[in-house]
């Protein structure tokens, strides 16, 4: 991103799919973390995801309830959106590619919960389709 070239965050980063190097889908860029830069602009320091990042972007009551539910359900005392530091990003294309696999990032608690409590209890969940 050169000085004469503005980067449209809305159009080119927000709401994009985040994938790992093998194309595994991790999350959406629900929001971003910005910090002021020396030149008066802003730099993106992290991609944020999960209900705590998406909720504030949803309208009115729906947004507040999303955040409240996510807070209630969180295990940590001070729940925050899931965060992927921007250094992890290797490519910005039709998807945002990061350099870690989705298992390492442990990004989605709901995914883990339904996997353990529902899907893995059904026979055949560990097999490829045939």
């Amino acid at each position, binding site marked *: 991103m050169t000085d004469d070239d503005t980067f449209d965050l*809305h159009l*080119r980063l*927000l*709401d*994009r*799919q*985040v994938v790992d190097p093998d*194309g*595994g*889908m*991790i*999350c*959406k860029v*629900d929001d971003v973390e910005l910090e002021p830069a020396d030149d008066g602009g802003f730099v993106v320091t992290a991609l944020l*995801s999960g209900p705590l990042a*998406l909720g504030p*972007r*949803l*309208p009115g009551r*729906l947004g507040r309830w999303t955040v409240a539910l996510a807070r209630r359900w969180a295990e940590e005392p001070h729940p925050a959106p899931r965060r992927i530091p921007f250094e992890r990003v290797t490519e910005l294309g*039709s*998807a945002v590619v990061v350099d870690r696999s*989705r298992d390492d990032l442990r990004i*989605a608690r*709901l*995914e883990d919960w*339904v*996997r353990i409590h*529902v*899907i*893995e209890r*059904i026979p*055949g*969940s*560990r*097999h*490829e*389709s*045939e």
Partner: protein
Amino acid sequence: MKRILSVFLGVLTAIGGFVDIGDLVANALAGARFGLSLVWVTLLGVVGICLFAEMSGRVAAVTHRGTFDLIRERLGPRTGLLNLVASLLVTVLTFTAEIGGVALALELATSVNYLLFVPVVGFAVWLVIWRMKFSALENVFGLLGLALVVFAVALWQLGPDWGEFLHSIVAPRKPATEDLSTYLYYGVALFGAALTPYEVFFFSSGAVEERWTTKDIVTSRVNVFLGFPLGGLLSVAIAGCAAIVLMPKGIEVETLGQVGLPVAVAVGKLGLAVAILGFVAATFGAALETGLSTGYSMAQYFGWQWGKFVKPRQAARFHVVVLLALIAAVAGVLTTADPIKVTEYSIVFSAVALPLTYFPILVVANDPVYMGEHVNGRLSNVLGTLFLVIIGIVAVAAIPLMLITAAGQ
């Protein structure tokens, strides 16, 4: 050679896959009441689905992203969410209609009440989604759906005056006994049946499932431009059969049996057996497609892992969504609401939801940063915009027409 074979297979599956319970019911209904005077709507619908399926296939091949992924990206989380909720409601309603359709077809074959089949059908749909490979699932049900070609055979056997037949398609005349509003209402239903949104979700997500790249754009085009129009011809044959056999006798289509009746008249019992096989395959195939589409659209909006190209445990939320949609659909059929009526409503509501799906596709297919050299050409844009206008008018008119005509009574 292998490539030609796969293209051929793709075309055959597209033919069989085009017709679902909505097309079966809408075409037979319209044929029995309005003769051939509404066939032009089906033909228009085929042009529309070709246009937008080609775009969504091309977008998926270039970007490897499914349609809902892009809907959220372009419309943002708010409008995207509204779109998601509306699309899910329509798709689950269609899913309900398809499962009811499979059960009705089995009732036709066995004379056992369709409600007894519903749980079995539901379980079978889930099992296939859970275990069967994507390409196998697409091919098996697409090919079996080709049994519906028996309607074309029946039309041939009925031997209408082809000159007159073509004339009444090209120069449509509304029957004098029917109101204009009823005529338009059935037109909206036929349009909704031809362009059902799940077809696009499924087509684009399928392209990602099969890991299409820009090299596959040609394959995609052949599938779309040969397969869908030939599938559309099956729809016309169904309407034509109903127009010739049912309309003169004043029979209105209220059951799936009446959809197949002209085949029994023209080709006999064996023909009817083939038609029933076609009903089962087409509706079962469409049940798989709608079921998967609920998972595709939800997962793509939220950025979850989806698809059958990974093990179920790697796409847990996706499979849970499909399972919940299935439970809702099965429960819907078990309320004993008439599946034919459910089908009629599902296609009209599809017509209402059309712009939500088709507008973002046109926008993304036009983005040069995204699509590079594969961006929409002028022809696609002119036709696409023109269609979007038609789709918009249909969507706005659908509900008022439904109220004025008391759902086509």
